[in-house]
């Protein structure tokens, strides 16, 4: 039987993928350009017995998904710049309390209200450092409707595997673009669930590291009673100011991502093996970059594309490796220079580096990239 296909929008693909991944709870607050995700889930979740709730504000939506996740649900929230600014408080809570959740940020221009209907890629650093304090971050950045589906499923898997918030960074173009997608059959994409405790309720500690850096998480309301707090906590979940306990917990929460970076990282490479210049781009910009690479190749310029699909953790080893074999890296992004700082940090001057920013609400065109490449070479 032929697989089910559809011509759908990126936001719609994201919502359907959430259900495929096992999401049974969505809380949100209306905001352009993410609203279709909430609209689709308000329609689809009740069909499978799942819950949709529109909360009173962006912070409340985060609070509701964290609460539902604690009760054992796979959960999602979707927003955009101004909403993401509000959510930072409880993204931090989900980090320290280690609660799996998926947050979609359909990026629009900013700061503040910015350009609600204009595309942007200007929340790269907010995704990494938006909430206060040291914390690990996982963020993925799909570039097509089909990939929005698969990356949404992967975002749920990562959230459940590493017991933490995972952000899906989409720009307004991929979110509102319509493309044909092929729906995967049930079982075709891997679905991962959080690790549940294997010990008795009496022996359960919510941050028990004897099982590794990602402690099993029991559902509240099951037979496991425990305490959760946003304060620095000991393995038993209760607050502590004991220096060595705080230090160990903080370091473990970073380590669980750092030590698994190669498993979390995902990149696409196009014609990089013999490349003299690499265009490093993500999201919709990578599609302009790919077009630019093809055209440059026709002109005899050995150009290649490196596309991080996982933005955070940043693929530093691979980018450092590529920097050693090329003359230059160009970083086009729909902001005034964010991801380029991360590239600069890992390239350490081993090749030329140039940025190409655009913040006027229009996408970066292939010809802008081609001109930039010629200017740099």
């Amino acid at each position, binding site marked *: 039987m032929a697989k089910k296909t559809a011509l759908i929008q990126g936001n719609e693909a994201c919502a359907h993928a959430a259900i495929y991944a096992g999401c049974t709870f969505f809380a949100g607050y209306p905001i352009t350009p993410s609203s279709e995700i909430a609209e689709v889930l308000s329609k689809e979740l009740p069909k499978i017995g799942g819950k949709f709730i529109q909360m*009173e*504000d962006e912070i409340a939506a985060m609070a509701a998904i964290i*609460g539902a996740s*604690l009760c054992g649900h796979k959960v999602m929230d979707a927003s955009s710049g101004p909403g993401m600014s509000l959510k930072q408080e409880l993204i931090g809570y989900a980090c320290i309390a280690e609660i799996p959740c998926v947050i979609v940020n359909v990026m629009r221009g900013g700061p503040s209200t910015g350009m609600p209907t204009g595309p942007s890629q200007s929340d790269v650093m907010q995704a990494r450092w938006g909430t206060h304090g040291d914390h690990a971050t996982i963020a993925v950045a799909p570039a097509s409707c089909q990939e929005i589906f698969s990356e949404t499923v992967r975002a749920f898997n990562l959230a459940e595997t590493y017991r933490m918030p995972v952000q899906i960074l989409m720009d307004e173009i991929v979110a509102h673009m319509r493309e044909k997608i092929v729906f995967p059959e049930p079982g075709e994409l891997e679905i991962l669930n959080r690790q549940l405790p294997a010990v008795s309720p009496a022996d359960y500690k919510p941050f028990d590291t004897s099982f590794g850096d990602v402690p099993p998480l029991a559902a509240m309301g099951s037979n496991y*009673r*425990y*305490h959760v*707090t946003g304060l620095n906590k000991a393995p038993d979940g209760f607050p502590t100011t004991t220096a060595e306990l705080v230090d160990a917990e903080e370091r473990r929460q970073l380590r669980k991502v750092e030590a698994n970076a190669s498993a979390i990282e995902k990149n696409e490479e196009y014609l990089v093996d013999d490349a003299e210049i690499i265009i490093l781009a993500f999201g919709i910009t990578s599609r302009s970059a790919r077009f630019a690479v093809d055209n440059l190749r026709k002109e005899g310029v050995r150009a290649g594309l490196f596309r991080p699909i996982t933005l955070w953790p940043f693929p530093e080893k691979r980018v450092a490796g590529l920097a050693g074999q090329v003359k230059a890296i160009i970083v086009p992004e729909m902001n005034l220079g964010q991801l380029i700082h991360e590239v600069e940090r890992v390239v350490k001057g081993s090749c030329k580096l140039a940025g190409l920013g655009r913040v006027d609400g229009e996408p970066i065109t292939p010809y802008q990239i081609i001109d930039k490449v010629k200017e740099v070479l």
Partner: protein
Amino acid sequence: MAFDYEKYIRPGKLPHIWCPGCGHGIVMKGLIRAIDKCGLSKNRTAIISGIGCASRLPGYVDFNTVHTAHGRAAAFATGMKMADPGLTVLCVGGDGDGVAIGGNHFIHACRRNIDITYIIMNNHIYGMTGGQFSPCTPTDGFASTTPYGNPDPVFDIAKLAIGAGATFVARTTAYHANQIDKMIVEGIQHKGFSVIEILDCCPTSYGRRNKFRSVVEMMKQHKELAVPVTAAAKMTPEDLQGKIITGILHQEEKPEYCEQYARLIDKVQAQTAGKG
């Protein structure tokens, strides 16, 4: 036989952080007695709080407990109750937490009439941060940020809750210890969003700045100002000026949020099945 509080207290978690004379301990004991009277299962009860002195309560009691972020208890609790409607969900917290930073979540939880019991310990002050004025500090009262007296008007939490749609609203004080568990029992047993405001004493941050020589004086004031709601019905507005009306102030039956959503799911699934 004396009531066995130990059964509900987490071993090794006391002493609590509350100052001598603070009423939060009286409320915690009342809450424990109420839970016991309702025969709630520890595994199927969740107590959610925000940030502040009162919000430290969940750490001491042996239930599913979540100490959330400042003001967010009602929003976390809404997610938990929606996720698991069979779970008994209670919120505890202070006045600043509940109706200043958490005010929006509070009124919308009232509006939804979700089956959560919210216990607000109103001690008229931000105690944990050193005694700044809250929306419940009396006008002209003194706090660390109202050195010349409080210019702000006061929130009436019970009126706010009733106006926002809560279907059970009660008020008592930390002096009326025996009424605390009675009100909480009624709140838990009521289907819908229940608010129990408990006027509380903060001798450290509020009392000493407002000419109370001791916590006894603060509690005596609560005793003297309290008027049971039945007696208040026979009094004139002038007579009730400055009084604290105690008891069940409001109770009505309205559709509960999780039940409404369950009906929505049933309807959608019946329609979907019909389309076959």
